């Protein structure tokens, strides 16, 4: 085989260094790209590649592992905070076929891309206790019915609402449908303390958050951006109804005009300043908004509920992280044990207590001690159970960019909903076509 040096295209004039690192990959002759489950062999030291560990809990968990497995020590490699940079570095490691990274902490949306490029080792389902995990989260670790990653944390959107305002307006239950939500807003608006309060907020700035809002709105209307058969399906009435919800909410002023600039943290600030009645947000906001040190004006005044939909409970997007084993790593038997350890019930419980990251083990959501500490767990559990993943696509980066473009154009009124969706359908068809 001709040796093709993969050379980084760093272009002088100091343009930018495309990160492909030196001359590494001459084609491997054996043809097995490490994707079969039988290849999980070898014991010894491994690495765990992840984003920043802010709580220090990961190090504690590693210390526990390392003291029990002195010959199979795990070293942590911390990547930058930015998810995109984490992905970049993992891809760089994979394209050079380096064995430096063993266990990868992947965002759920990267699974398809990493698996399709043969960068992950297929995992044996019979050796991992998947039955204790929430089925929706396990799905995010699969690509084409094969398991490549084990869910370690999950995440789903919930409806945060101002219990105090609803109560004053005479509403005892959180809304289950959009109509109920708008009606509640109309009643709250009449209150004196609701002068500067906006009705509802979900992220519609042009970023990954827009994709998430689209997935939720279209999913709640019974549609999907990419259908279960892997084909784009935004040329449907459901998709139209879903996107129209976002467009109308923004147009009518139910969402603040600044919604197209607010990111996740901006939304949190808005809610914590008491300027929203309803908000779609991740669980992480719960304890921060309940902080009674003066940073939040809504501490003790809000509660969470499942997201509403057009005719009943809506659908949340599924977030979270999965653990996978690099195809090019050594000591994969140790790696598998380590993945089982970190995704096990005890480790996830400790992690939830230390970092409030949502677990994937179903039983933890019903643990009275945990529910006492995190009262939103039951709501979150049902949100995750009904959650839908973001489009599964090998070219996820392009797919999400196209979704953001269409959603943003529709919400800001640059393109009618029909036109935006027709354009999106065309683009997604090209992006998901199998050549």
């Amino acid at each position: 085989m001709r040796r093709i040096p993969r050379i980084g295209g760093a272009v002088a004039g100091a343009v930018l260094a495309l990160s492909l690192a030196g001359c590494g990959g001459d084609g491997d002759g054996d043809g097995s790209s490490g994707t079969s489950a039988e290849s999980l062999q070898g014991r010894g030291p491994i690495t765990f590649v992840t984003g920043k560990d802010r709580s220090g809990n990961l190090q504690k968990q590693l210390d526990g592992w390392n003291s029990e497995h002195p010959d199979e020590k795990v070293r942590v490699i911390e990547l930058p905070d930015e998810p995109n940079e984490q992905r970049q570095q993992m891809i760089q490691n994979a394209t050079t076929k380096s064995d430096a990274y063993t266990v990868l902490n992947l965002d759920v949306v990267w699974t398809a891309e990493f698996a399709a490029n043969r960068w992950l080792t297929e995992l044996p389902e019979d050796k991992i206790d998947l039955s204790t995990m929430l089925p929706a989260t396990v799905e995010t670790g699969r690509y084409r019915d094969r398991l490549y990653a084990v869910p370690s944390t999950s995440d789903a959107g919930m409806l945060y609402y101002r219990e105090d305002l609803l109560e004053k307006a005479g509403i005892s239950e959180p809304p289950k449908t959009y109509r109920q939500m708008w009606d509640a807003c109309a009643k709250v608006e009449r209150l004196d303390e609701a002068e500067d309060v906006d009705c509802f907020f979900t992220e519609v700035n042009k970023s990954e958050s827009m994709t998430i809002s689209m997935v939720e709105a279209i999913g709640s209307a019974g549609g999907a951006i990419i259908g279960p058969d892997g084909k784009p399906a935004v040329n449907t009435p459901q998709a139209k109804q879903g996107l129209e919800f976002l467009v109308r909410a923004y147009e009518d002023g139910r969402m603040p005009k600044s919604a197209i600039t607010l990111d996740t943290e901006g939304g949190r600030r808005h809610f914590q300043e008491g300027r929203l009645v309803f908000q779609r947000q991740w669980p992480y906001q719960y304890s921060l908004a309940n902080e009674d040190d003066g940073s939040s004006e809504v501490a003790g005044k809000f509660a969470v509920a499942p997201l509403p939909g057009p005719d009943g409970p809506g659908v949340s997007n599924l977030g979270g992280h999965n653990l996978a084993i690099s195809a090019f790593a050594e000591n994969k038997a140790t790696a598998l044990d380590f993945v089982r350890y970190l995704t096990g019930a005890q480790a996830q419980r400790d992690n939830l207590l230390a970092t409030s990251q949502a677990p994937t083990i179903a039983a933890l959501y019903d643990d009275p001690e945990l529910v006492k500490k995190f009262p939103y767990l039951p709501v979150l559990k049902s949100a995750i159970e009904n959650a839908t993943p973001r489009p599964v696509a090998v070219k996820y980066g392009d797919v999400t960019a196209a979704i953001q473009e269409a959603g943003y154009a529709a919400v800001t009124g640059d393109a009618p909903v029909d036109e935006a969706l027709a354009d999106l359908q065309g683009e997604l068809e090209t992006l998901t076509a199998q050549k």
Partner: protein
Amino acid sequence: MTTQDERAAAANAAAAAPRGRRAPGGGKGGGDARGQRRLAALLLSPTLLVLALVIGYPVLAGFRESLYARGEGLDESGFVVEGTRFVGFDNYTAIFSGDPAGAFWNAFGNTTFFTFTTVILETVIGVGMALIMHRAFRGRALVRASILVPWAIPTAISGLLWRWIFQADGAANALLRQQILWTADGWPAKLAVIIAEVWKTSPFIGLLVLAGLQMIPRDVHEAARVDGASAVQRFWSVTLPLVKPALLVAVLFRLLDVLRMFDLPAVLIGVNQDSVETLTMIAWFEASNLRYGSAAAYATVLFVYIALIAYLFVKLLGADIIGEAREETKRAKRQKARRRKAVQA
């Protein structure tokens, strides 16, 4: 380590080169001259080697990469088909006339727009800053230091800083008493980028122009004043021409810099925002989606564009740094020839 080598080599080269050239006229033996030339080549070679390695090779490798595509389709079991495919200039034709052409021309327009607006504004403001800093007044040191603060802040940090200023409930809107959505995708975003960029880089021009100003002898101004030139006349006819070389170098630096602007719009407004997407951002997007061939093509196009702008700038405005040195050696040669003639006569 390399820089040390480079510096040493450059110093040696500078010392060796003129001597080598002078040798034939100087009446020394031809063999000696050849030896010296060889020595010069030997001493220069580490520099050239380093340059070839850090500049020549990446440029060529980048160009080569831009002729390939890889990993496009999926096979039956859903795996990406492996292997690199030579596609010739397909990546380039796609940029100019294929699907990505719209995005390319948008980014090209943004890059050019930002370049011209920010460099013009920076030049005007920077010269103003330099004139202020040049004045002798009480507290000048403080003013100088404070003018330089923006330049000292890393671009990504100043991007964050301005994002706070420009957010919907930020300082800019509070000051203007308006609700402008600066960080949404639209023309206010362009304006926000220009403001932040000018704020950050005007001090750079100010600094270089100040250095130029301080080279101007005081008596030139005195003479102009005695001759009855007004302040405006003195600025246009005395200060500006004398500071021109420094100013042109500063502007050239800024031009080259802003043409490859990336982090400020990326942090301030975000990636994938049509209104502020520059050519580097588009190349970055391609690379982060594993299309290294097309990313390299974008980068190569940008490289050519930057080289072209720099060439035009040097040609049209005469900011010829190397040229001046060339002039000097020519002048020195002419003088020597004249002297020789005089001796012969």
